[in-house]
């Protein structure tokens, strides 16, 4: 078992998704139980499903000096950076610590593959890419992190984590190591994923997409609704901000089971939860709120329901918020970290939207309705393809 780590301060955070741009809009949508999902109007080839689409990106290119990296994913990154004063806070952090001492660690599943898809629809007669798509970096998974690094002007560690749906949870772990081991004094973490043909038609091919808005943990759930989102957070040593919420722990594991379905007994999930709690120096009984991965696939929710029912206190509240945002894939980790921080800071627990009849495997922890509570410790789970698991533990500021 890992030993406890010094908590880090989360000194800024923000999220932009179909459920709203910025913290206030997201919190309001959560409180009003207003879903961001809509009937699919994204794909040229009709695909009957529901999506979490962020409005306005088509008319909002990135600033001209970054035009070589303009694409839907980096547009959403730019939109997300400009919420909640995050960009100013990040630039201030870079000025304070120095450009080489602020790490940038971001997660994405498909990055700017939407631009690559578009290039294939507009190939030149010789079969090559048209001039507008000739930027090599635009077609790398690292496009997102390179874009954000250029915006912030950092020259320290900068890494893209691309482990499918756990990507932007794992960035907290990697950044925490960089800070604790002395390679950075602070970090910009987060993730961005956008709607694209690859994920919409890919999950459709796997028969994992619901034809109705997703209903996590409902006995009659029919699969996922895919969404897009950007989210970011700043991590600093705890002394920098005694009152800020804390990253208390993280856990990472692998299922060693299957490429596209979780271990049925949740072996990997259990390992990641145990490691995250050990790093936080907490028992499972200390967790008051669990933001579940809760994709609304049959396999994920059955596994996760059983794990949560067994491990956590009956009084803990657990919910999946994907009914608001859709499954934002590589951005899910950061979006749900931000929702966990909203729960800690605003003293309420979001329920599970669209779901009425819980799967019998669910324990008493599953919250369907919103509840006014004041959680002290929140845990967020992310489980990705390839059996890639990450779990984060957050706590109130002011803890020892």
């Amino acid at each position: 078992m890992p030993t406890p780590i010094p908590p880090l301060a989360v000194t800024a955070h923000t999220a932009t998704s179909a459920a709203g741009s910025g913290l206030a809009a997201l919190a309001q949508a959560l409180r009003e139980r207003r879903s961001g999902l809509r009937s699919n109007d994204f794909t040229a080839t009709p695909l009957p499903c529901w999506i979490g689409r962020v409005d306005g990106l088509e008319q909002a290119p990135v600033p001209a000096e970054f035009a070589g990296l303009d694409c839907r994913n980096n547009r959403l990154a730019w939109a997300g950076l400009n919420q909640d004063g995050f960009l100013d806070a990040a630039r201030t952090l870079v000025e304070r610590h120095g450009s080489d001492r602020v790490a940038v660690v971001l997660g994405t599943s498909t990055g700017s593959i939407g631009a690559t898809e578009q290039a294939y629809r507009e190939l030149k007669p010789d079969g090559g890419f048209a001039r507008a798509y000739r930027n090599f970096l635009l077609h790398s998974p690292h496009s997102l992190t390179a874009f954000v690094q250029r915006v912030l002007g950092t020259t320290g560690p900068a890494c893209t984590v691309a482990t499918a749906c756990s990507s932007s949870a794992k960035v907290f772990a990697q950044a925490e190591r960089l800070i604790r081991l002395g390679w950075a004094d602070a970090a910009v973490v987060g993730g961005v994923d956008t709607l694209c043909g690859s994920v919409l038609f890919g999950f459709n091919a796997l028969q994992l997409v619901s034809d109705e808005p997703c209903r996590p943990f409902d006995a009659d759930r029919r699969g996922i609704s895919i969404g897009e989102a950007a989210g970011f957070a700043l991590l600093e040593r705890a002394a920098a901000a005694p009152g800020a919420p804390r990253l208390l722990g993280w856990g990472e594991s692998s299922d060693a089971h299957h490429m596209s379905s979780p271990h049925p007994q949740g072996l990997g999930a259990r390992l990641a939860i145990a490691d995250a709690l050990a790093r936080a120096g907490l028992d499972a009984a200390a967790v008051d709120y669990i933001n579940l991965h809760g994709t609304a696939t049959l396999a994920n929710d059955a596994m996760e329901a059983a794990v949560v029912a067994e491990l956590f206190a009956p009084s803990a509240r657990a919910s999946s918020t994907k009914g608001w945002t859709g499954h934002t894939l590589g951005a899910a980790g950061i979006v749900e970290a931000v929702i966990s921080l909203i729960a800690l800071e605003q003293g309420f627990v979001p329920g599970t939207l669209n779901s009425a009849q819980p799967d019998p495997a669910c324990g008493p922890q599953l919250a369907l309705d919103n509840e006014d509570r004041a959680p002290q410790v929140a845990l967020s789970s992310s489980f990705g393809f390839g059996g890639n698991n990450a779990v984060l533990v957050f706590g109130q500021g002011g803890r020892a």
Partner: protein
Amino acid sequence: MSAVALRVLGVGVYAPGLPDWPTAAAALRGGHQPDTTTLPRPSPPLLPAAERRRAPETVLYAAQAAAEACAQAGLDPAVLPCIFASAQGDIAINDYMCATLASAPLELSPTKFHNSVHNAAVGYWSIATGCRAASTAISAWTSNFGNGLLEAALQAADCAAPVLLSVYDTAAVGALQSVIPFDCGFAAALVLAPDAPDGRGARLRLQPAAAQAIAGEPEADWACALRRRNASADALLLLQALAGAQPACVDIAAGPDFLLAAEVRP
């Protein structure tokens, strides 16, 4: 204060003219000029036979080098946290996905889709080896090797135990050849452990390079040429130091204006 002291317990290589680490080490010591014109499809011993036939090329390259490094280290891959790093991921699968989406999106293969994730290689590896430790799949584009090396070093320091790093990229295919200049596959793997007085293997010490440092180049022309053909061949600079009999210091690109100073003591 931030220097990381490590031991290199195992090395693996699979690249044109460099089918394994002993051959690569001999060539990097100046023993012979490898024929870097061809390379057979890898057939990594730790993958099940069915996967060896049908798995995407990135999986095969990553696993080939990883298996060799684990064997040399004498460690069970099931217990090693895995850091898999690739600048581009599986280019052939991306080509298939984008071409199919442009012509017949509803005919997309579900298997190709789940193989398209950047962590497909580490996913297949962890399944084949029964590894439930942490695994990650990262990219830092053309600074992919140095970035992966740093992440692996910090994971080894964090867990105070050996970890596996595999760095790989494959040749560009299809329309992506017009933007991605890779024309051959390349994979290198290291098993890294925290340094210990009674440890085995070459010592490797990493720290941030001085502000004005510029990335080094391997000595041999053929090695420099490979670097231009595949971003992951950046590994050759460190591999040359590991192949040598004398202590060596090399500066390795880990990002824009960010380099690692690597000190190797055999």
